[in-house]
């Protein structure tokens, strides 16, 4: 039998960059295939070639033995390829079945009217056949993220997909929802569908996939069977050398209170309360980790602390003084460093070069601003020092931010903020998109800052990161901390429960409270 998908010698060049270099990929029918690699390794580009978004520079796409030539995703969809993007393409106020049939509605009245009964029945039938537990009449806005993902899968199936490509499918899910997704994978493959999923998480590839292909720098490093490899093997394939898996924070007694948040309430852009009555304290020389599924108020909490969003109620004290109502400028000047979650929107000005980006936030301060003029020479020296220390590539202070890869953009931001000599570092997803080697380095620098007595508020969706670096780990759910736990003793399962909003029994909370030296205000379970 022919493999479901065979990519033969795919090369994709963009001006100045080779994103995929002679990549072969064979995916057997009815299997789950993980495409593993760092950000920038060329995974998404390769899948976009398969999905007809890009035309390969060289090489062919072969489906079920037939060479294909796709001009657009429409051709790929017709050939049985379905793609589920990381960010769902669903219309929130519409129902599940309406979303599934959107654009391919069955029609009556000579094509003038949508045949609602037929559409609804078709969706119900599909949902039942694959054992998806979704109500076709539910509104998208009312169902969970995991269910929304299944609606996306239904959409692809409804269009006749035999091969489903999923881009980082677990990024938005709680650990429990991830388990459910693996169940969905099994159901789909049992019925002859083929799944390719993109991931940069080792554990996920190992537990969900039958075969794993590792990409590095646009090259296929190798395809292995998930049963035959270990995490360490995979990590080495991804990075090209042996890596340490766990950062290590040595215990150290916390110092004075740096940040004290009491009864904080913050609204999101729509005016809905995103942070509700949140309280915690952060001391010098301490890392407070905040875990949780994205969108549970972490962004609003961080913005309220850093001065980008005003709180509706509550108090924020920084080094003992209230900073509610102070401007972003005053907080920067007060020694607050901030690594924002969105490097393209906030962290960098994409059309500026690194010299100009290096002074973002310090543009009014010496040595960059002197006597009302900007000293571009000092700015350039500063940018070059960050580039060198944080291994930003290409090492060119005149390169525009937009010309850098995501990981290098991130390294530059982290470097700029760490070198501010801050008292408080607010870091949101500091290593998102950064390769393993650089991640280790950034983690080490973060721990150095901690050792120097800086306070760190670390928000991350990477569990091993928050767990490994934090002194205390708070789990955020729907705007408040569902628990503050000791990262050394808490289990992944317990964190999963907290992320889903369930409170733990008293035992584990007490463990955390003890470790806090009584500073566990957040643990009000």
């Amino acid at each position, binding site marked *: 039998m022919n493999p479901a998908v065979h990519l033969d010698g795919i090369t994709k060049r963009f001006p100045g960059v080779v994103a995929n270099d002679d990549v072969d990929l064979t995916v057997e029918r009815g299997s789950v295939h993980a495409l593993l690699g760092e950000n920038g390794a060329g995974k998404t580009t390769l899948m976009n070639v398969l999905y007809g978004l890009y035309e390969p520079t060289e090489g062919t796409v072969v489906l079920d033995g037939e060479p294909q030539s796709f001009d657009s995703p429409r051709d790929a969809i017709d050939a049985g390829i379905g793609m589920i993007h990381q960010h769902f393409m669903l219309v929130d106020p519409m129902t599940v079945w309406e979303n599934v049939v959107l654009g391919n509605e069955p029609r009556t009245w000579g094509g003038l009217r949508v045949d609602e009964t037929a559409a609804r029945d078709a969706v119900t039938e599909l949902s039942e056949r694959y054992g998806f537990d979704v109500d076709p009449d539910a509104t998208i806005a009312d169902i969970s993220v995991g269910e929304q993902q299944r609606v996306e899968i239904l959409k692809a199936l409804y269009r006749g997909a035999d091969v489903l490509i999923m881009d980082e499918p677990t990024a938005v899910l709680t650990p429990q929802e991830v388990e459910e997704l693996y169940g969905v994978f099994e159901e789909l493959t049992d019925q002859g569908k083929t799944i390719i999923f993109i991931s940069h998480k080792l554990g996920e590839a190992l537990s969900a996939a039958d075969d794993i292909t590792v990409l590095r720098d646009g090259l296929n490093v190798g395809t292995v069977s998930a049963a035959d490899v270990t995490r360490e093997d995979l990590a080495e394939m991804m990075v090209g050398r042996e890596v340490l898996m766990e950062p290590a924070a040595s215990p150290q007694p916390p110092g004075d209170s740096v940040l004290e948040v009491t009864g904080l309430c913050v609204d999101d852009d729509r005016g809905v309360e995103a942070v509700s009555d949140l309280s915690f304290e952060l001391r010098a020389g301490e890392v407070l980790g905040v875990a949780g599924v994205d969108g549970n108020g972490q962004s609003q909490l961080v913005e309220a602390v850093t001065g980008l969003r005003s709180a509706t109620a509550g108090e924020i004290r920084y080094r003992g003084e209230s900073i509610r109502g102070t401007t972003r400028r005053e907080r920067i000047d007060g020694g607050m460093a901030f690594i924002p979650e969105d490097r393209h929107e906030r962290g960098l000005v994409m059309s500026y070069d690194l010299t100009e980006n290096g002074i973002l936030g310090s543009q009014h301060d010496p040595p960059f*601003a002197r006597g009302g003029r900007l000293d571009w020479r000092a700015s350039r020296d500063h940018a070059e020092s960050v580039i060198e220390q944080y291994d930003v590539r290409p090492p060119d202070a005149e390169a525009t931010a937009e010309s850098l890869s995501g990981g290098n953009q991130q390294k530059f931001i982290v470097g700029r903020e760490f070198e501010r000599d801050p008292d408080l570092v607010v870091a949101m997803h500091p290593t998102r998109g950064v390769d393993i080697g650089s991640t280790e380095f950034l983690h080490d620098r973060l721990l150095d800052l901690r050792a120097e007595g800086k306070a760190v508020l670390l928000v991350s969706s990477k569990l091993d990161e928050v767990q490994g670096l934090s002194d205390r780990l708070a789990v955020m759910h729907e705007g408040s901390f569902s628990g503050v736990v000791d990262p050394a003793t808490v289990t992944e399962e317990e964190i999963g429960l907290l992320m889903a909003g369930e409170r733990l029994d008293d035992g584990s909370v007490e463990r955390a409270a003890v470790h806090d030296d009584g500073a566990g205000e957040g643990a009000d379970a």
Partner: protein
Amino acid sequence: MSDSDSGGEPDRTPSLARRVLAPFADRSVAERLVISLAAIVLSIAVGFVIVLVSGRVAECSTAAWTMPATGMGFCYDPVEVYVVLFNGALGYPFAVGEPGLLNPNWSPFNLSFGLTLSETTLLIFTGLSVAVAFRAGLFNIGTQGQLVVGALATALTVIAAAPLLPDGPIAGVVLILVGTAAGAVGGGFWGAIPGALKAYADANEVITTIMLNFVAANVAYVLVLEVFRAEGSSVVATRYVPEYAQIRPWLFSASSDFALVALAAGVACIAGLYYLLEHTPFGYDLRTSGVQAAAAEYGGVNAKLTTVRAMTLSGAIGGIGGSVWVLMSEGRWMASVPDLGFDGITVSILAGNNPIGVLPAAFLFGLLKGGALEIGFQTDVPTELVGVLRGLIILFVAMPEFFRMIGRYAGMGSGGTGGVASTASEAEADEAAGTEGGEADA
């Protein structure tokens, strides 16, 4: 137009608009200059055809040009039209149809060149006014109104202050400086209003500045009509400011309404604004707000204050344009204010909103103005047709820049989520794929 840089445009995007606009968003400065020159040549080619066709349709006793072989006669000679347009605007420095390349009797201080430079000078100020707002991400359509207010403030201040000082050149210099300052304050005030409305009431500056243009024109008209009208004047105008308080033409003839000092002030303004934007913290804040407001906010820029400041600065420069119009061109405020503010928008777009680029852009406009006047003197070509030819040139030159701006505004090109972004950063490629996939699915 060469497409070599983006020849490998990777997106197979379904959106036509995106495909058309994205390449414009990524042009380099050199490419843009080449494109502008090509656009002028192209517009002249199209203009040739139009002149010929209208010359065939029009009636005249003797043909200005006869097509060889066919003997077909045309009323207007397109070569002559364009020679007069460009050569005439400079006062005929080139000897066309006579021996030698240059005209031996040509002096730069002629009337036509003076008219060209007069228009250039005024448009430098209004072009800069629009450009500085644009760099802060604000579309100031209100330069016209700011110019009207600034001009009136200048005229009234100088007329009121003149009796306080003894006549003479020193008083003249003082009055010119005070008058210009009054123009800057008046225009700045008129620009600060939409700035504050934008910052504190979230009112779109495009709408408010357009409305304030009407308010300025009509309030100024009524004020002059009822209160400040010169006695015995047949038009709605103030008294003339004293002659010694007008900016001296020097080398140029007085009827050209042009003073080299004013042009020098305009060029100084260009240099000052360039320095402000590129070499000061305020300029950094302003530019950052313009290209990426969220990053500016992250960097501690007070968005509201920057909006008000940028609009005030923009209005002040427009107001100075009004001062120059009063003190150099008219000698008084009068109700028929030319559309300098609106032309300033096109000048700024031509210049890519770069202060340095405003100089050649304003000069091109000046050339076309001076040349149009000259065509009226020298040929039978109707002024309406000359207007069409001017419009063609401006349209052809402005369109690529205009597309570029729309492209960047819509987040296309490498600054946005598409284009070459996918080469380097997979995160961005994800987003690009996301939007495109969505469009394809729908």
